[in-house]
């Protein structure tokens, strides 16, 4: 049976070829990651110093200076964003997991959250501009101009879907027996949700919030025409404010080597923040009650 033999050889050859291709694809995916990280750490670490954290930028062309204003600004923006995104997101997640399970409303909320997650960040920026920054909106003193307030709102809205979906996933991991035990003791439902279910799932929810936090920490597009940027130290919600990613963007495209150096250092700080958040999520979801979530 020569034909049979030939065909089986082709089959095993194809099998091996596909294996090689899959390994090649994996290598090709891993390479840019390693290259990006390696280059970032190499460039960033060599430019990072104390001045980076304590000084504000020098005028263009002068060497030295740091990104203290951008770090403070990112802190202000992210604080505001978390104040908006975390409670609403957790509330939505509680609704999905505890009250609306299986209802039509819950399904459409989940679907909308996923769709909102896919809306480009630049569109969020446009919407925040139209809603808050646009000079036509001027019936309140903090509206009608570029401000930290508008940037924080844009980022906060972007946090909601992520927080909502992780909270739901984490709450679904909490065993039913825990809820039943609480209700059996005569604890009202709201109390049981707040201090039993949410508390059990809290490590997961906190890390979910951190993940959302880390994601919006790197967002630039929604800040371009809301927070705008500011070369001086500012903590006012009513004024334009600098943010790390904005500063990185501006400096990356500038012609000065010293600003490139600062951009790399800023990128390293951002990445470290994100790596810590992602690793924490993995660590938390690999143990305890929440094992397997996320």
């Amino acid at each position, binding site marked *: 049976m020569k034909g049979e033999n030939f065909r089986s050889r082709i089959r095993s050859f*194809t*099998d091996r070829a*596909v*294996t090689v291709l*899959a*390994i090649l*694809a*994996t290598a090709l*995916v*891993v390479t*840019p*990651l390693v*290259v*990006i990280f390696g*280059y*970032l750490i190499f460039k960033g670490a060599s430019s990072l110093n104390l001045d980076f954290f304590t000084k504000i930028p020098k005028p263009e062309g002068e060497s030295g200076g740091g990104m203290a204003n951008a770090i403070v600004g990112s802190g202000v923006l992210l604080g505001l964003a978390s104040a908006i995104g975390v409670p*609403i997101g957790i509330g939505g997640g509680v*609704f999905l997991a*505890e009250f*609306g399970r299986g209802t039509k409303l819950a399904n*459409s*909320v989940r*679907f*909308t*959250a996923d*769709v*909102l997650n*896919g*809306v*480009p*960040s*630049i*569109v969020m920026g*446009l919407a925040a501009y*139209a*809603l808050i920054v646009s000079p036509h909106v001027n019936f309140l003193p903090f509206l009608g101009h570029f401000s930290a307030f508008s940037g924080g709102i844009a980022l906060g809205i972007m946090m*909601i*879907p992520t927080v909502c979906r992780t909270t739901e996933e984490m709450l679904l991991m909490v065993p039913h027996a825990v809820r039943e035990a609480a209700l059996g003791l*005569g604890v*009202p*439902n*709201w*109390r049981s949700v707040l201090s039993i279910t949410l508390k059990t799932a809290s490590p997961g929810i906190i890390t979910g919030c951190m993940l959302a936090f880390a994601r919006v920490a*790197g967002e*630039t*597009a929604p800040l*371009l*025409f809301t927070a*705008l940027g500011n070369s001086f130290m500012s903590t006012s919600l009513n004024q334009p404010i600098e943010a790390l*990613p904005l500063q990185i*963007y501006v400096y*990356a495209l500038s012609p000065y080597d010293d600003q490139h150096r600062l951009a*790399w250092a800023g*990128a390293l700080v*951002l*990445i470290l923040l994100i*790596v810590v*958040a*992602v690793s924490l999520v993995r660590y938390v979801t690999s143990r305890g009650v929440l094992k397997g979530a*996320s």
Partner: protein
Amino acid sequence: MAPVPEIRISQPPIPREAKVNDERRLPAAPVVETSPIRQYLLSRGNSALADRIFHLLMVLCALSIFAIVGLIAWQLVMNSQLTWEKFGLGFFYKTFKNPITNEPLFWDPVNERFSALPFVYGTLVSSFLALLIAVPLGVGLAIFLTEMSPRALRGPLAFLTELLAAIPSVIYGLWAVFVLVPLLREYVNPLFVRVFGWTGFFSDDNPTGLGFFAGGVILSIMILPIISSLTREVMSAVPHSQREAVLALGATRWEMIRMGVLRNARIGIVGAIILGLGRALGETMAVTMVIGNTPEIHRSLLSNGSSMAAVIANEFTEAVSDMHRTALIEIGLALFIVTIIVNAFAQLLVWAVTRGTPSQAH
């Protein structure tokens, strides 16, 4: 030991012969000595009301997600009225002529003539390029991770791709400006010009290394993790019995993957690819930094161009007139509608496959 006092929480049962409307025969309400526990419970107030308020709050949080999407849509529509009234649907396909040189002109803020055509073109070309590169790699990675890789490699590799997904767009852009673009300029682009120059898609008239191709490459790196992690999710949702059945018929591993896994997961994989497309369409910063930002249409992939998101990022704060600003918002609105449709469609496809199984990817 002190005697434990009897605790009565409910009233004693009404004797059976008592009728509801027969008031004379009802026993007088017994005087129950309120115990500390009962006092405590009564002091907590009406938990039914608190429950209802809590429920309402959570529903409001959930509904706010609808409100946000509605608000975004409303604001974008309201603020793009001006351009819509002037150009109508032609905004997306019309071209103008430069009165002096007679060359096609698309984007002329000074004379308030706007056409989004070059940006739509740039977005489509760069996203398509990104898919062309990312789909084979992403699906290959997913196949390797779910079906071939040793268990010890699986965790770290999944973690690495997760990290790739978490890197901010602006850092990809930074890396692309300083590493990828010089690399393309010095080595890759000349090679492509020499080998594929005859097709017209690669011409060597752009010495910067920026352009559609650079945008497509950086986009492909950015959407790879989404495609591969979702593909992995739908592939691991395929029941093991499918694989075993195909193997039992004497199939090789590849035949098992092809017939047992890919065939069952294909809808979900298409969903993953479309989700990646949705991300690519709206990606802003990295593309803005490498695409060149000129509102032109070229056949050559190595030419400068622009994309919908890039033009908004670039020009919005410096918009010279209300018409310019509303034109950019209308581009944003188009982006919003397209990404919502694309994402909703992809989400439905992915759900169709993974429904009922806990998500394991990310």
